[in-house]
């Protein structure tokens, strides 16, 4: 299903602006954290992994929070959260392409064991972080 970014269903700001306003700090935060993490860890892929885990945890938290907002009168605040935070900020904070690029680089650099560990840590770590976030939001609700 395609969405029309210029149809404004009401709310505080046009949806495309909300997505963009979330995306910029999300991408900046990923860039800065990966840069800082790469120098500390000396391995860029674990820095990317950490940022993805953070985004998964926050995504679970947000999804749990949104379950409380599923009442009609709070529709617009739910949309704002979804557009600016889930799609814009967390969507841009996390990355799939860098993970894939790092897996390919490790594999081609004869570090297959490392690549498999990174893939498993991303998958299971991401699921665990998201579930923890979700449970945290539900237990507070």
């Amino acid at each position, binding site marked *: *299903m*395609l*969405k*029309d*970014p210029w149809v404004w269903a009401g709310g505080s700001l046009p*949806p*495309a602006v909300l*997505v*963009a306003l*979330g*995306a*910029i700090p*999300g*991408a*900046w935060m*990923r*860039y800065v954290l990966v840069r800082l993490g790469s120098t500390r860890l000396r391995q860029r892929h674990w820095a990317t992994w950490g940022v*993805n885990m953070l*985004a*998964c945890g*926050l*995504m*679970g938290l947000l*999804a749990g929070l949104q379950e409380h907002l599923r009442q009609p009168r709070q529709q617009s605040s739910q949309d704002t959260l979804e*557009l600016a935070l*889930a*799609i*814009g900020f*967390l*969507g*841009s*904070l*996390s*990355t*799939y*392409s*860098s*993970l*894939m*690029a790092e*897996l*390919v*680089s490790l594999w081609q650099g004869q570090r297959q064991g490392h690549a498999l560990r990174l*893939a498993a840590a*991303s*998958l299971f770590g*991401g*699921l665990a*972080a*998201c*579930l923890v976030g*979700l449970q945290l939001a539900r237990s507070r609700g």
Partner: protein
Amino acid sequence: MKDVKTPRPAMALLWVALGAVPGALLRWVLANTLIANTLGCFVVGASGLLDSPSPRRTLLVGVGFAGSLTTFSTWVLQLVVHLQKGQWEALLSQILQDGAVGLVGILLGATLHRQRGRLSQRLLKR
């Protein structure tokens, strides 16, 4: 001409933002995580980011555009939904299918990029 200098921090953030906005908007308009992620992987391969790209291209295309076009958090949230509903087949097929398609996308892009490089070298030699 290839730009090999690392941009200053403020410029680096500008390049990242310039890539991130269209990347996130495209992901939202597509409204399909698999397509957005695969497309982002293809872009990374096809723009030569697996080889030795200029710092500016890495920031604009890799960190900004493809980084924001693709998403790991939404992808994992979809897995969690399958997990909580006990949809094991959907869960497993999403992991295997999306993982494989992403890898194919990035490798296909990289192959195209390298072939284009070879082709232009051959043309330059003539």
